[in-house]
């Protein structure tokens, strides 16, 4: 199967994730969309590694996974604490940090 | 000739293994003193004593440095003495390199001379709410340290670092210890100077790139950069020159860039104002002499008319504005703008007399304006107001104070017999051969100098006793306005609300007076130190001294 299809899938997943981030208000959903984008990138990294016959991309994908895992831990903790204080998980409600 | 100069310049490049640590000591001693202020912050008397001891020790060390400085070696082409150099950031070719020529030597001597006196002045000063004397003295010492660094650095990058670092303690001195409008003044001072510094940084990087092109490896070492100065294309030089020039013109300040000075000078506490106008601003004119002229000789010559126009405008404009001022500190600041015009005129007139005069002017202006600021401070300490109209007829109440003010004023208007005359004469006589028109206008400026000084003196000192601050002080039998700082005990002891000078104040003024008069009649020792370095600068610029038409050498003997 042509690697192009993987890349197309990756792009599709990324677009879905990006649109999700932009249109959804629920913090958990936004968060999952971000994960989706990260994994879309991972997919393209692995694909490129395969295409170029090098392991760099695959290694990079592992890095991304590790960082993503760490990020999930921190991010979910933040979302939890916001939810506890404001009784809401909408990202538009947490808009105090502005001009 | 150029190759010979280049060779010596290259050979003079400091070894990278250290060298004479004297200048390092001069730099680090005030830093140490400033740091000591922190643990001593609860014990104010001890803190003051330690600060004073540090300043005095620094002064002694500078005297030792002066004694050890060899004018013979300087005459025979040794550009810097007390050289010290170790690599700093090898990737950028920067060094922690120090060294002094005669010009730098007199500037560090001026700094070290002024600081102990200023500390004595600040000894009993009433500080704003919540500020401690130890913090005040620490900032003074920190300012002194950065000044020592900026004058002794022989690596252009290091110079830049000190040039910017200077702003920090001065910013806090003005912003924390200044007058009512101190926030505005300190921010304006900081931003204005920083802007100039950043433009200089751009030029600095350009200079580095140029040196990399010509020498193969980029360098920030002054003597290496100087050795390629003559071979750098004039168009490049002009851009690089302008970057440095803007920074120095803001610092000095020359006329369109001057408006920060009256604000900063007026709002700064007196000691900071003396250091600011007396020494810190001289970094601008020092920069002209040390960096602009030798590193960009062709550009300096091409752009000299521009600078001369600014200088001459400054002389007249500053003087006229000084006449129109109502605030005494702003008045002194504007007189300084006129004086900086003279220094700039001498610097861009390219003759050894003018260069020597400009250098000596830097020292003398520090002394005379310093004394003028101190006198203003003494008046404000009694009356609590900076407005001229709040004072009048003071000579009747405090004749000694009035006499000292007059002497400071006479030095400021360059009366022969005071220090400033020698420098002003040298600047004018040296500028006349090359720039007759500018010199004539500048000479007319001496009338205005007399005008503003005498007008100031007449308003505040002569005539019948009058003015809100004076009357209030006399009626209260204690001290004057809300900002008055004179010790009520002193006032009571003298039986007057407007007492004459105290012993401590005389102690502050006496050294200044002695130096002002002695340098007026015996400028020789200072000129001897300056002259060889001035000759080197002349050589680096590459313009011959404008020999008088008769071609007579020597003469009045």
């Amino acid at each position, binding site marked *: 199967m042509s690697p192009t299809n993987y890349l197309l899938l990756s792009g599709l997943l990324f677009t879905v994730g990006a649109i999700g981030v932009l249109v959804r208000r629920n913090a958990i959903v936004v968060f999952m969309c971000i994960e989706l984008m990260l994994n879309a990138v991972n997919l393209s990294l692995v694909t490129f590694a395969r295409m170029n016959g090098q392991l760099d991309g695959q290694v990079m994908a592992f890095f991304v996974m590790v960082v993503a895992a760490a990020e999930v831990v921190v991010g979910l903790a933040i979302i939890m604490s916001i939810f506890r204080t404001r009784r809401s998980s909408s990202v538009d409600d947490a808009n105090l940090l502005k001009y | 000739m150029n190759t010979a100069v280049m060779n010596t310049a290259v050979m003079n490049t400091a070894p990278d293994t250290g060298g004479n640590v004297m200048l390092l000591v001069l730099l680090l001693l005030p830093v140490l003193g400033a740091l000591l202020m922190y643990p001593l912050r609860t014990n104010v008397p001890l803190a003051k004593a330690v600060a004073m001891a540090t300043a005095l020790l620094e002064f002694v060390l500078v005297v030792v440095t002066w004694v050890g400085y060899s004018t013979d070696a300087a005459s025979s082409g040794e550009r810097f003495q007390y050289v010290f150099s170790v690599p700093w950031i090898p990737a950028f070719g920067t060094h922690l390199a120090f060294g002094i020529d005669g010009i730098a030597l007199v500037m560090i001597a001026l700094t070290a001379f002024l600081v102990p006196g200023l500390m004595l002045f600040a000894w009993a000063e009433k500080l704003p709410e919540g500020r401690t004397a130890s913090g005040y003295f620490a900032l003074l010492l920190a300012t002194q340290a950065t000044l020592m660094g900026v004058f002794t650095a022989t690596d252009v990058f290091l110079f830049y670092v000190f040039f910017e670092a200077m702003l920090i303690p001065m910013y806090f001195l003005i912003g924390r210890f200044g007058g009512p409008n101190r926030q505005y003044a300190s921010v304006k001072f900081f931003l*204005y100077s920083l802007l100039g510094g950043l433009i200089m940084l751009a030029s600095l990087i350009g200079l580095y790139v140029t040196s990399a092109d010509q020498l193969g490896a980029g360098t920030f070492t002054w003597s290496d950069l100087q050795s390629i100065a003559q071979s750098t294309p004039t168009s490049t030089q002009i851009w690089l020159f302008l970057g440095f020039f803007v920074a120095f013109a803001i610092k000095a300040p020359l006329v369109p860039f001057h408006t920060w000075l009256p604000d900063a000078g007026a709002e700064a506490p007196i000691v900071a104002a003396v250091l600011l106008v007396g020494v810190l601003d001289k970094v601008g004119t020092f920069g002209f002499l040390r960096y602009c002229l030798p590193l960009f000789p062709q550009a300096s010559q091409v752009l000299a008319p521009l600078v001369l126009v600014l200088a001459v405008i400054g002389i007249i404009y500053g003087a006229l504005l000084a006449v129109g001022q109502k605030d005494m500190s702003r008045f002194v600041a504007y007189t300084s703008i006129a004086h900086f015009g003279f220094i700039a005129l001498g610097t861009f007139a390219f003759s050894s007399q003018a260069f020597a005069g400009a250098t000596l002017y830097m020292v003398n202006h520090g002394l005379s304006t310093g004394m003028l600021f101190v006198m203003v401070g003494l008046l404000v300490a009694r009356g609590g107001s900076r407005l001229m109209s709040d004072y009048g007829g003071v000579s009747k109440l405090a004749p000694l104070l009035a006499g000292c003010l007059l002497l400071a004023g006479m030095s400021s208007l360059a009366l022969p017999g005071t220090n400033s005359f020698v420098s002003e004469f040298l600047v004018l006589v040296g500028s006349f051969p090359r720039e007759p028109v500018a010199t004539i206008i500048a000479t007319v400026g001496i009338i205005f100098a007399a*005008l503003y000084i005498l007008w100031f003196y007449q308003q505040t000192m*002569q005539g019948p006793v009058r003015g809100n601050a004076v009357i209030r002080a006399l009626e209260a039998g204690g001290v004057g306005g809300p900002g008055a700082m004179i010790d009520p005990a002193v006032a009571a002891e003298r039986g007057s609300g407007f007492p004459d000078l105290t012993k401590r104040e005389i102690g502050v003024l006496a050294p200044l007076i002695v130096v002002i008069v002695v340098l007026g009649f015996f400028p020789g020792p200072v000129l001897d130190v300056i002259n060889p370095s001035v000759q080197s600068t002349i050589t680096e610029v590459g313009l011959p001294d404008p020999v008088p038409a008769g071609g007579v050498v020597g003469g009045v003997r």
Partner: protein
Amino acid sequence: MTAPPEVLPATGAGSLAWLLFAIPAVSALVLFLAGKRANAWGHVLGVASVLASFVLGVVIFVQTLGVAPDQRTTELSLYSWISSGTLDVDFGLRIDPLSLTFVLLITGVGSLIHIYSVGYMAPHAGAEPSSDSSRRRFFAQLNLFVAAMLVLVLGNNFVLLYLGWEGVGLASYLLIGFYQDRPSAATAAKKAFLMNRVGDVGLALAIFVLWLNLGTLQYTEVFARVGELSGGTILAITLLLLLGACGKSGQFPLQSWLPDAMEGPTPVSALIHAATMVTAGVYLIARTNPIYDLTPTGRVVVALIGVVTLLIGAVIGCAYDDIKKVLAYSTVSQIGYMILAVGLGPAGYALGIFHLLTHGFFKAGLFLGAGSVMHAMNDDVNMRNFGGLGRRMPITFVTFGCGYLALIGFPFLSGYFSKDAIIEAAFGQEGWQGWVYGLAATLAAGLTAFYMTRLMIMTFFGEERWRNLKAPDGEDYHPHESPPVMTGPMIVLAIGSVFAGFVLSAVGLNQWLAPSLGELQESPAGVLPHALVPWLVLACSALGVLVAYLVVGRRPTPVQRPEPVSFPVRAARRDLYANAFNETVIERPGIWLTRALVFLDNRGVDGLVNGLAAGLGGGSARLRRLQTGFVRSYALSMLGGSVFVVAALLAVRFA
């Protein structure tokens, strides 16, 4: 032109010449620094220091007399003062007949006036203690003046001359403003300093031109080589020097500070503003005679300035009622004579110095006499309040009378010898110059006789108008003779006024000055025979005296100043509108310019800076509105940015 005399190093007493100014300078320093402690003995030190200088001056003078005339010019180099590059200014002294003449005048008349001041400045009985300090301060400043004036005349180069030049300016400033709490004194002092500085600019520029062209500033070398310069340069130098002389000597157009300078104590008027400092301009031109020799045009300008000034001074002197101001305008006029004399060139240099010396005696004597009158009349200066004082103060009357006769050129008194010689030399010029100079000088001699006679009559003769008046301080007048410490110097000066002219011309002042000024050339026949001139001048002066007697002496003087008066009197009372001119043309526009510039600086230059800052601040305030706090809009902008970057990269790649 004769070859300049050889310059020898000073020997013997000459090598101590630096003490001449060092002694008064140290004395001034001690008096300034010692403070109240010196109140008791300050005046003694002040007098002693000037006397010591005088004695030393006499010793050097005698020693110089003992050598041949061509060896009388000596120099003494003390140390290198200002040295840079090829410029090397020595602190060096030139001891020659000209400077020694001035040294003797300054220290001699100076000593007498110091002694007089002991009495004049003595604290009033029961005065507050601070007035004690004032006498010490006065002597300190007077000593400072003597020191500076001696530096001025002794320096062997133009820079040292400039040091003395501005030094006497400072002393003059301090002493005019001595009564500091009087606003008028403070203003007069400032005015004097400023107008002097205008002249100083000329002197400074002359120095620069000399340096540019000759590369030296020492008299000997300048004079030796000044001939190499082009005529235009020489003319420029002489005119610039003349500007300096005009400022210091109160010559047109810078004359208006001198009458105002009478705000100072009277001994100051006598010493500084009559006998010595104001003659420095004459000294300058006489000293630089080798330069003036080369430029007839320059000399014509000098002489014309002198002519204009001597007329202005004489005309205004006729209108004032203030005794010191009349004497002041008389001084302006007499210095005009001296300037005219030195403007005549080799035929006049020595005559100018001659008149300067005799004038030093009689004008100092007149001022001291005026001071004595003021002392007696509660410090009043208005002559309309005087009258009949001759009987009350006989010594003052007689000494003043000697000075008066000497000034109007009474035969065989001092002024007769010196002023007539100048007028003779003036008529000795060819063509229009001879007529203009000569007639103006003769006319002014008549006017001098008029205003001085008027002064004498109003002060010493006539009815005792003061009997029915109160002094300005509210007391009755009690005229009385002054103490001996004041009359003594007046007597000495009166003797000088009578005999100085005769003695000086008998012992050959002109030959004595020849090594410095060149031989005095006999003036050519000119437009009027020399034998006729004395008679003409005498007639003119007699006419002046007669008119004054008819106008003032024969009818009672009104105590109130008569108004209205004819235009010439009105103009003269207003100083021929010199002050009005200065005020309208310089002062008012200057004030407006200053105000406009202050406004421009605060609003324009600083406004630009602050405007820039405000603009940045305002822009930022708008931009921060983009920071909405909505995470998703940030994400959208990030996405947009990324898309833009990628698009740009692709466009560059594939375009």
